[in-house]
């Protein structure tokens, strides 16, 4: 019996073969973690180069073209290869089967395949983007990408197209797992919100990604064959590209933020030792966000010449999405009320998320207003807004989740002090980097320019200094996590006294997650 218990999923060996051919969702999580961390720091280096250039008003560090290529690299890597897969492919992969009480995902081999597609496709794209000097930005807007850019656009869109399949496979796997693999007694309203969030994300992955795929194919066809679908001089319509692109890419924002919301629900409940406030409302809000998210895409096209009537409709729906988002934020806050709050590192990340997401969400309402958007469109206000959602929201929650489940994944603890310092560095550095950008954008600084008038220098310097603090917040975990992996104290099965099936098994968990499949008798977050 004891020998059985000590055989966990990592004790199967460290040979290359045992990793590269594994079908264990927990090991695949690690494969993803390695690739994603690599991509993240590459995108981060590009971000630092951008901030370095913007320290001074004239374009003295990078050329105009070099600057375009740098922000394209930053956007392409961060959006397509970091943010989209970040939480679902790592924490989702590790936790979805454990949280529903299953031995693995429904299709383990497909899961491994999706990692290969993701990693090889990602490396291919990045080599092409750097080597081919792609300068279109992450959006590949036509007609610039199809007619004018003389860089390796075809290879880049082909790479993103390929990586799309990895998203689709992960989505299918999660949907089927949630539907068919739940343990006895685990009915839908007993699922942790993390599972709900990843389920809703998977629906978006499955419904939206193929539309992006066909759009990217057409850019490639347009460049190769000159078919003119997006070329106005041949009877085509460039707005069509924006329609199809944003039909994917607006919901993609929810691909990034919904899993983050799932993580935060787990963090807030565990470290206030309270049941989640309004569980059913939270579930409804998750589903509403994922479905309403599909009818707001035109808010990216207010100034692109789309019809005014469509603009009004899209604006209205965009306001509407704010309602479930507000429901979630208020419910988290209510969960804290009269809780026994402990300020551990994961909780600091969770609370940071609440603050940053609130700012990001509220500024989103500015941008959803038709008239105001004309002033703010394509300025640093937009840049600040979506960084508050994607970095302040998604990345903060990703790190919070990593800190929360690290003891479960590795069986080891990390330095409490250093992790708190890292979490605070992230919060301070982030605000210092991006809050000045709201002010810059509001006073008229357009995005994607490598030089600017002297009047903007103070705010730009603040932003650049903030990015250094932010970088420290990202680098520190790398150090103490590596240390913990080898030297950390044993964590035990449940170091946080958390609720949830994943905490009822050993850390690290055995190969099939549970010694025997658990029987579920109550809802999630049974803290009292």
């Amino acid at each position, binding site marked *: 019996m004891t020998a059985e218990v000590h055989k966990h999923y990592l004790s199967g060996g460290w040979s290359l073969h045992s990793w590269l051919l594994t079908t264990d969702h927990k090991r695949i999580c690690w494969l993803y973690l390695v690739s994603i961390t690599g991509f993240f720091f590459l995108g981060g280096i590009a971000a630092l180069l951008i901030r370095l250039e913007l320290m001074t008003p004239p374009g003295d560090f990078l050329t105009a073209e070099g600057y375009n290529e740098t922000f394209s690299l930053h956007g392409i890597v961060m959006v397509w290869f970091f943010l989209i897969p970040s939480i679902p492919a790592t924490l989702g992969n590790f936790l979805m089967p454990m949280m529903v009480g299953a031995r693995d995902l429904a299709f383990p081999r497909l899961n491994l395949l999706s990692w290969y597609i993701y990693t090889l496709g990602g490396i291919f794209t990045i080599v092409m983007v750097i080597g081919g000097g792609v300068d279109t930005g992450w959006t590949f807007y036509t007609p610039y990408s199809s007619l004018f850019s003389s860089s390796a656009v075809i290879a880049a869109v082909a790479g993103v197209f390929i990586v799309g399949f990895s998203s689709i496979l992960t989505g299918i796997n999660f949907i089927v797992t949630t539907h068919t693999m739940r343990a006895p007694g685990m009915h839908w309203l007993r699922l942790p919100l993390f599972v709900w969030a990843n389920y809703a994300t998977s629906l978006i992955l499955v*419904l939206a990604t193929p539309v992006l795929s066909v759009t990217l194919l057409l850019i490639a066809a347009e460049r190769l064959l000159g078919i003119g679908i997006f070329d106005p001089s041949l009877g085509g319509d460039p707005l*069509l590209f924006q*329609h199809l692109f944003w039909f994917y890419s607006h919901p993609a924002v929810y691909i990034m933020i919904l899993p983050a919301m799932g993580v935060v629900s787990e963090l807030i409940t565990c470290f206030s030792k309270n049941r989640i406030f309004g569980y059913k409302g939270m579930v409804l809000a998750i589903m509403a966000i994922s479905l309403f998210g599909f009818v707001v895409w*035109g808010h990216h096209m207010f100034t692109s*010449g*789309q*019809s*005014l*009537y*469509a603009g009004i409709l899209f604006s209205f729906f965009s306001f509407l999405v704010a309602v479930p988002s507000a429901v979630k934020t208020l419910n988290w806050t209510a969960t804290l009320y009269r809780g026994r709050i402990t300020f551990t590192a994961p909780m600091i990340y969770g609370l940071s998320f609440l603050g940053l997401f609130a700012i990001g969400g509220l500024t989103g309402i500015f941008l959803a207003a038709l008239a105001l958007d004309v002033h703010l469109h394509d300025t640093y206000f937009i840049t600040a807004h979506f960084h508050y959602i994607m970095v302040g929201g998604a990345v903060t929650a990703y790190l919070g989740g990593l800190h929360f489940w690290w003891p479960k994944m590795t069986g080891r603890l990390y330095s409490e002090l250093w992790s708190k310092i890292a979490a605070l560095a992230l919060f301070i550095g982030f605000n210092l980097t991006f809050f000045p950008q709201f002010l810059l954008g509001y006073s008229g600084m357009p995005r994607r320019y490598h030089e600017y008038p002297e009047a903007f220098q103070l705010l730009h310097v603040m932003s650049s200094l903030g990015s250094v603090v932010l970088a420290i917040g990202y680098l520190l975990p790398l150090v103490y996590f590596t240390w913990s992996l080898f030297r950390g104290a044993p964590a035990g099965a449940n170091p946080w006294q958390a609720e949830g099936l994943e905490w009822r098994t050993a850390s690290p968990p055995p190969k099939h997650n549970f010694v025997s499949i658990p029987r579920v008798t109550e809802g999630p977050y049974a803290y009292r």
Partner: protein
Amino acid sequence: MNYRQPILIWLGLLALLALTVGLNVLMTGPWRPLLHYVIATAMAALLMVFFMRLRASDGLIRLFAVGGVLWLGLLILITLAEVLTR
């Protein structure tokens, strides 16, 4: 083995095909495209319900099938609405 049902469905499909092609040759007017799509939908429904066994599948799979079609409808409808009101 039950050959009867698949063959009957197949005959039904061929009859509908004949109908839609016949309409195309014989009929003119603004309602014709609508009829073509109604017939195409009927044929697709026959294929899905019988050859793809939607009839014997659980409700969830039916929901996925319908959901996919609705989502496609959403994409086309909203895009067209924008183009037509420009």
